[in-house]
């Protein structure tokens, strides 16, 4: 089938500002959007630039804006769209080239919430115990692949650079509700600020954007509730 890809292009080496270019290619409806980008890069225009690696939705490289919404290009099939699709880089971060954005601020937000287990000495030659129910409490948040789909779908992050963003909050929650972790108070202090959970306006864009089906907004609400009730 014939498809037209309308892609926002920007190469700082030559362009003053971004512009759109159109490419006509043949694809199957069951092909991935990433297959279409590859087809363009490999057959028509080698300068087209985007990130990609696993090509099946687990590495988080190829989040981008497709027809006005964030998707992973490798986890979205052509049949979800019409014959013309518009592809743009994620909003809110500086564009390095074409669909490649500067992810450093995103990872800075992630690092700010102390995304690692904070706990005392572990038992020698044994695991820390944790029941399946205790794992259930935070397991959903562990699915995050740090693709930034949620964070760059959030209108607050578009306008407020200091907002940690949904992904950072999800990764904080992943530890806050882990029965083995002892750093919840520190993380809650970080989230209990103007750049933390209270910036969230519960728009649900993040949940809609998550390619891992994490109920991101619910997790943010969970953290807000914990802060309000000051209990875990």
């Amino acid at each position, binding site marked *: 089938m014939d498809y037209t890809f309308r892609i926002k292009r920007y190469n700082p080496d030559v362009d003053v500002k971004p512009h759109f270019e159109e490419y006509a290619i043949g694809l199957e409806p069951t092909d991935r959007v990433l297959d279409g980008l590859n087809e363009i890069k490999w057959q028509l225009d080698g*300068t087209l*630039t985007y990130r990609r690696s696993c090509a099946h939705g*687990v590495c988080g490289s190829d989040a981008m804006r497709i027809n006005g919404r964030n998707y992973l290009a490798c986890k979205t*099939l052509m049949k979800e769209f019409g014959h013309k699709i518009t592809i743009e880089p994620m909003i809110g971060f500086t564009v390095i080239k074409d669909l490649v954005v500067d992810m450093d601020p995103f990872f800075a937000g992630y690092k700010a919430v102390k995304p*690692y287990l904070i706990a005392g000495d572990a038992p020698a030659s044994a695991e820390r115990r944790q029941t399946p129910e205790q794992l259930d409490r935070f397991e959903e948040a562990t*699915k995050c*692949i740090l693709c930034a789909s949620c964070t760059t779908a959030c209108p607050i992050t578009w306008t407020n650079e200091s907002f940690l963003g949904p992904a950072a909050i999800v990764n904080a929650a992943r530890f806050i509700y882990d029965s083995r972790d002892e750093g919840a108070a520190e993380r809650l202090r970080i989230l209990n600020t103007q750049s933390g959970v209270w910036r969230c306006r519960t728009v649900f864009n993040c949940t809609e954007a998550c390619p891992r089906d994490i109920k991101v907004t619910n997790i943010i609400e969970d953290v807000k509730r914990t802060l309000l009730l000051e209990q875990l």
Partner: protein
Amino acid sequence: MAYHRYDAVIVGAGGAGLMAAIQMAGKANIAVVSKLYPTRSHTGAAQGGISAALGNVEEDHWQWHMFDTVKGGDYLVDQDAAEVLTREAIDAVLELEHMGLPFNRTPDGRLDQRRFGGHTRNFGEGPVKRACYAADRTGHMILQTLYQQGIKHNVNFLDEFHVLDLLVSDDGHACGVVALELKTGEIHTIHAKTVLWATGGFGRIFSVTSNAMAGTGDGFSIPFRRGVPLMDMEFYQFHPTGIYKFGILLSEAARGEGGILRNGLGEAFAERYAPTLKDLAPRDMVSRFIYQEIKEGRGVDGKDYVYLDLTHLPGDVIDRQLPDITDFARTYLGIEPKTDLMPIQPTAHYAMGGIPTDLNGQVLRDASATTIPGLYSAGENACVSVHGANRLGTNSLVDLVVFGRRAGRHMLDYIRSNDLPPLPVDPEFVARAEVSDVLSRPKTERVAALRHELQVLMMDKASVVRNVEGLTEAKQGVAQIRSRYAHAGIDDHGLTFNTDLTEALELGAMLDCSEALVEGALARQESRGAHYRTDFPDRDDENWLKHTMVRKTSGGLELTKKSVSITEFQPKERKY
């Protein structure tokens, strides 16, 4: 020229590289260099589990795990290394838990374990529950957890730096790497006392693969060009259950949880070939079972695929234990695994071979045990050899944790007792020459077209089933693609994030890997593990209970043999 100085530079930010980095963090000045962001590394795609004889669910012993590893590898495994792997697996898995990895649990809160292919109780009597797991995203959780530890320990990451060359001092010490910073196009000299290669595999040389697009074998090719040998390259694993046409992995855990392979007639065919372990026979065998079914006309609708059947599993087992792979089936096939059969075919998955190392990750110069000072390798990139002729499921994750850790610890000792070697004259010369060569080529060939030809050639002639005719065609074909590669110019001549350039460089690495693989496969006139030759269908211990080592010399590739370490288990016929 951008210049950096470190005690250690680690190439690759997957499980092996990060595990090594964590050993040194805070104790030495290190950098982890990756052409991706670390969390994009292919360790994150590993699904089913990481084995350790914890015995949490049923009786188990590391000696049983060691035996299974040796037998699974068709006795080409170095048994001293398999002992280290399986003994230290226990402590390594516990260390991951201590780092915070969210493993699935038993009702009383211990690490849960499940069955996996080729893992048995009491030296082959029947399946054993040995694989610790985090749903079917165990690799994702290992990668995340290790990256989190890297952040905690302030590891210095050079993200999106594409490594171009290995630096060796005039007196033969590894002394750093040269890398291209993608964001700026700037070339950097990273001067260090030690270098660890941990760049994963090269599955992208095949047209159907589970491997990420980054899996182009850069970390095999670059040291290879510098005279470092590659060992056992002919042993390449095809995982039986890749999604038809996509090659996307459907974990062996699906069969560990009770999934069954069915041919076009609906028959559960594995039991005909492996009466004891059935669908849980090792991967090399199951891939050949599938090949045989298809060859004898029992593929689905006469085509080149069969089915993976999960329809009889309880819905909550699918939802809780296999959520990701069933999501893949829904996304890419548009089918519901609870009610529909999933079309699968073997998919290029894992390189058993690689850079030869000793038990501490030190790279071997040749078939004697001499090492190249300062040079290390671990994970899929390396060949210790714990996988021999065929790796067991879950053992890749064990390998990268155990040997990544050992390499990191040894590097720390090395750093403390050695000075920084001087750089060679004009350290960026080779890297700059390669880049300007690619940028100045005529465009009479296209990189993508050549890459596709190579992938189809390797899939047709050098995959699950091989013979001298096919391998000879592969050898000639690779040579021909290589000569055309010299005319494969690119469109993008800019500095900023030039992936047109890096894809061309990656094809160069893929050609090296293909050449080495075919060289080993042609030489090895026997069938063992994943290397199956129709013209030599039997294992030949008399002549080939040996590793192969391929080395690039000015006169072409040179192949030598290296002895196998056999300590506990004498080679026997391999039946399941």
